């Protein structure tokens, strides 16, 4: 009995060691690939930054208005953004290659799935970036317009617009990726519907007089900058 147990243990142990002997080189290979990938991606980022600087991309982006757009979106300058994109793309590739080096069929299958997913991910990334830019452009514009028009709670308004924009963008991203599509659609509909319903009930039925009075008081007291600025010149 003891012999059997020992034998089983011995077999299990040798199997384990055998497994380790198989896995460790692959693990090391994966780490090497990832580390090398990181280095190469970092070098590529640096070179890209230098080349873009030499090509005076900063001046070009100023002239085309792209720099202003990025500033409005509170994103880094164009050349840094491009260099970062180069870094992440390269690194992602090496990451996937590293996973491949492990040789696990499950992971390889997963990598293939990820590989298939890449175009949709790229699309989703594009939507996310565009969405971020739009949201970051729109927020300060709404904020400044509201402040200068004397609207109440300008920050709240700008924040709400930003949130709404990002909600839509998030839903679009998830839809693009194809994850839990029905759930996303439903959740989105519920959130938006609920917000709309709440506003309608509050303003239109239950608190009409109160809201009306509040709005009247606040708006009456609200200063409006002159509609004609002639006297300021």
């Amino acid at each position, binding site marked *: 009995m003891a012999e059997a147990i020992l034998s089983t243990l011995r077999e299990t142990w040798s199997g384990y060691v055998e497994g380790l002997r198989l896995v460790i080189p692959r693990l090391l290979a994966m780490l090497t690939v990832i580390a090398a990938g990181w280095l190469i991606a970092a070098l590529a980022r640096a070179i890209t930054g230098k080349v873009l600087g030499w090509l005076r991309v900063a001046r070009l982006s100023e002239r085309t208005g792209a720099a202003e757009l990025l500033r*409005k979106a509170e994103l880094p300058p164009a050349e840094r953004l491009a260099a970062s994109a180069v870094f992440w793309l390269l690194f992602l590739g090496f990451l996937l290659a590293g996973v491949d080096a492990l040789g696990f069929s499950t992971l390889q299958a997963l990598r293939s799935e990820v590989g298939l997913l890449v175009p949709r991910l790229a699309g989703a990334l594009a939507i996310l970036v565009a969405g971020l830019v739009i949201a970051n452009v729109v927020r300060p514009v709404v904020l400044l317009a509201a402040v200068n028009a004397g609207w109440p709670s300008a920050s709240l308004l700008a924040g709400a617009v930003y949130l709404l924009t990002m909600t839509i963008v998030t839903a679009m991203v998830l839809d693009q990726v194809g994850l839990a599509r029905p759930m996303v659609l439903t959740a989105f509909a519920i959130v938006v519907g609920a917000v709309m319903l709440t506003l309608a009930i509050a303003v239109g039925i239950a608190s009409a007089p109160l809201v009306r009075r509040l709005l009247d008081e606040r708006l009456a007291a609200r200063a409006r*900058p002159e509609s004609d*600025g002639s006297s300021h010149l």
Partner: protein
Amino acid sequence: MSTILSDELLSGLMAVGQLDVLVGLPTLNHSDSVGPVVRAAHVAFNRELARERTALLNMDGGSTDGTPDIVRDASIVDRETLLASQSLRTRHRISAPYHGVPGKAAALRAVFAAADLLQARAVVVLDPEIASVTPESVAALARPALAGDADFVSPAYARHPLDGPLVTQVVRPLFRAAYGLALAEPLSGEFGCSGRFAARCLEQPTWESEDLRLAIDLWISGMATGDGLRVAEAAVGPRRLTARPRPAVAALVPQVLDALFTCLRLQEAGWAPGSRAIAVARSAAPPPPPDPPANVDAAGYATLFREGLSALGGMLERVLRPATLEALRAGAAADRPHVPDDLWAAVMLELAAAHRHATISRDHLVRAAVPLYLGRVASFAAELAGLEPRDADERLEALCLHFERSRGDLVALWTAPLR
């Protein structure tokens, strides 16, 4: 090779020949206001400048409302004026389109080119949006250059101290700090100048620049700091704009600030060295009493100041020094907005530098300045309550002096970014 002067315009200029005073009038759809301006110039030619060789040159940017026809056909309707101002000479009146992107810059360039070709001794540029132009004011802008006493003649309007705060609180003091030139109206759309000044402006390479189109009026005033140029001011009475609707304050302030900061950037090489002020010759005539002041909605401005400062704090942190922002917050929190001269000077200098370095989007920066400006106006209005106009004028002068003394700060901020 592209030309500044069209053949049609050149034809007109050939007929005019050498002259003493050229009056330039840029227009673009000004049919509602251009008539009185043309008539004022016409009477000025015949009555105030009777012996001089004069011409009116209307540079039109492609009006679709018949402005050029009005210019050509405008005549004196008042019989007494007509009799009193019979002309000794042929008076030329030319209306022609100009080459280039429509805008005042292209129009002025054509006027300067025409003045240079015709060897005009004096040039007067009029603004069709100013309703208070008179024959006397036209002559007042021409005479110093005609007499060879000045190269640039800026108008000096009879203003109430609370009138035109964008000019008195922003443009005038900052212009003075940077250029060392104590002009009352650097932003004026009308001015006089000598042929030499016109030729010098014409030589500048910046005419094609987008930035110049935005800041042309200030740029012209800035050119007056050039080597060897003499500057004068002419008292031209009160200033009234035509009735056409103008942008709201919320749009006007960013426009003016953008133009001002852009102009500082375009002409940074021409800033006055040190703090020497350039002499300005003033007309001896006593100024007429100013128009009654516009009402300042101090309470409203105070609210906008407070709420704007609160909402835009995050943005302003990136352009103003912490101490300046803190002081603004303290000033907003008081019962009445308190933005003293030193704080206001710091705000304007830091905003100017941030605009130059594009620390944040320039468009956002000038819009974020609106509540700060309104706060300052409210603060200043409160200070002036109860003061005599003469004392109020001294306060305005004190503000300008404060900006002048802060010139070193401006230069330091300009050459090194805030962050």
